[in-house]
């Protein structure tokens, strides 16, 4: 009895319990006596009931299948009635055994996966540090202002100026939230994307605008940062330092520079001189761009 109590927790389902019973009998699955198995199985269910355990429905279904098999065995073959809807010659015993064999194989496969899982914990990849000279090579990346972004997106939109007046009506099938996922996926897959790449697949103005709004939103939420490695060059988008995204509550947004993502900023405040003089951003872009806040500071 005591042995049962411990075992109950372990069974994942009726098949698992049946396998355990077969193993206890020390017989091959193909040679198991299903009638005897049915009796043992039902004994277990009775026991579970005694212990006030909730019996999952699957166990009851299996119990009824076993009872059915057992009852069929009581009749000689020539007297057995073919059940309606069941194929001629379909033996429920065989069906159950097939299921058990299959389940057993996958249970073994799961055990092998578990070994692999444990092994992975002990395998360490070589992660070389960044090579020394590499950090000197790229110039400090200036942050991008909202105007740089607007300029860039208007460049993308020009693509559609020529073909927009065909009188075709597009279905509005893009949403900003969808595009947020799209942008995040792209950035996380490639580590960083160029501005134009985001819009490469866009089919209409509306789609470009949706993607752009998604980009602005992600910058506001500090999930992404934009940099422009060289003046008038392509804007690059990469993931923000995750610590910053989590660490800064939205309430802080008011021009205070978060300490985390200021990778290249303190060095040269004059770097963004190529963008229009920063007189307006407070009114128009106060909530759209983290980069704008950076410039205000």
């Amino acid at each position, binding site marked *: 009895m005591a042995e049962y109590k411990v075992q109950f927790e372990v069974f994942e389902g009726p098949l698992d319990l049946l396998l355990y019973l077969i193993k206890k009998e020390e017989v091959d699955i193909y040679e198991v006596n299903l009638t005897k198995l049915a009796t043992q199985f039902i004994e277990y269910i009775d026991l579970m009931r005694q212990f006030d355990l909730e019996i999952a429905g699957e166990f009851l279904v299996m119990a009824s299948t076993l009872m059915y098999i057992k009852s069929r*065995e009581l009749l000689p073959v020539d007297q057995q009635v073919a059940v309606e809807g069941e194929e001629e010659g379909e033996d429920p015993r065989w069906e159950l055994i097939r299921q058990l064999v*299959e389940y057993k*194989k996958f249970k073994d496969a799961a055990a092998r996966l578990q070994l692999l899982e444990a092994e992975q914990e002990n395998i360490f990849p070589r992660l070389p540090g960044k090579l020394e000279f590499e950090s000197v090579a790229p110039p400090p990346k200036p942050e991008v202002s909202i105007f740089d972004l607007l300029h860039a997106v208007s460049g993308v939109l020009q693509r559609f100026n020529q073909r927009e007046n065909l009188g075709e009506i597009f279905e509005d099938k893009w949403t900003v939230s969808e595009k947020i996922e799209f942008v995040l996926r792209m950035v996380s897959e490639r580590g960083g994307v160029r501005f134009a790449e985001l819009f490469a697949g866009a089919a209409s103005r509306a789609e470009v605008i949706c993607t752009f709004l998604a980009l602005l939103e992600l910058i506001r939420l500090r999930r992404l940062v934009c940099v422009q490695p060289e003046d008038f060059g392509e804007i690059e988008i990469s993931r923000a330092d995750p610590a910053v995204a989590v660490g800064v509550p939205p309430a802080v947004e008011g021009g205070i520079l978060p300490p985390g993502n200021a990778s290249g900023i303190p060095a040269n405040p004059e770097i963004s001189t190529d963008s229009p003089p920063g007189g307006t951003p407070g009114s128009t872009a106060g909530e759209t761009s983290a980069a704008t806040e950076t410039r205000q500071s």
Partner: protein
Amino acid sequence: MELKYILESLLFSAQKPLNAKELRDVLAAAAGADEAEATAQSLAKLKENDLIAALEQLAHEHEAAARSYRLACVAGSWQFVTQPEYAPWLKALVGIKARPPRLSQPALETLAIISYRQPITRAEVEQIRGVNVDGTMQTLMERGLVEAVGRAEVVGRPPTYGTTAMFLEYFGLRGLEDLPAADELRRIVVEKPPGPVTAEPGLATTPPEQLALQSAAPEPGEGGKPEAGS
């Protein structure tokens, strides 16, 4: 200079695992450089298959040398990793690897079925396991090991599921063909043994010509309603 050693040097210094395409791009970029020499140029138009062959050869060499590290291919990307038996010292050096908690037994079983049989519907998984898998599927999807890959062309068009690249990374597998006993489990054909499986027929007596069906006496009833334990 041999291709495999060029690749070795690249992988030795790479910041992340590189796949064959990325390595080929590097070779092409090196050939495009101004001072590119003949060797570099000869490697510009290499096929990915040749690259992979060279990588495999390199991995074999490392394996044969029985060093403390080896060249591993996980989810198609190549990287140098240490052998597991050196873990105690590495843990002291870099700390325990940040990994999500280990998978539970039901999760592993479900994952095993999906990985060998993908694309597979939820109902098919349940049929093999014999239990409901809603909860475990949810866990596996949340952990990014399993994803919906399409829809089955049967009534109701239920979604089908498959494993992700993260699955391969999590178990350190090169690809799905690298799963243990892959060919056996992909589609198991269970041979029906000859002859009856258990007891012989003819146990019971022949039933009478006509069974007089009395008004069915009410069955004792198996336990009645399942009462929640008080």
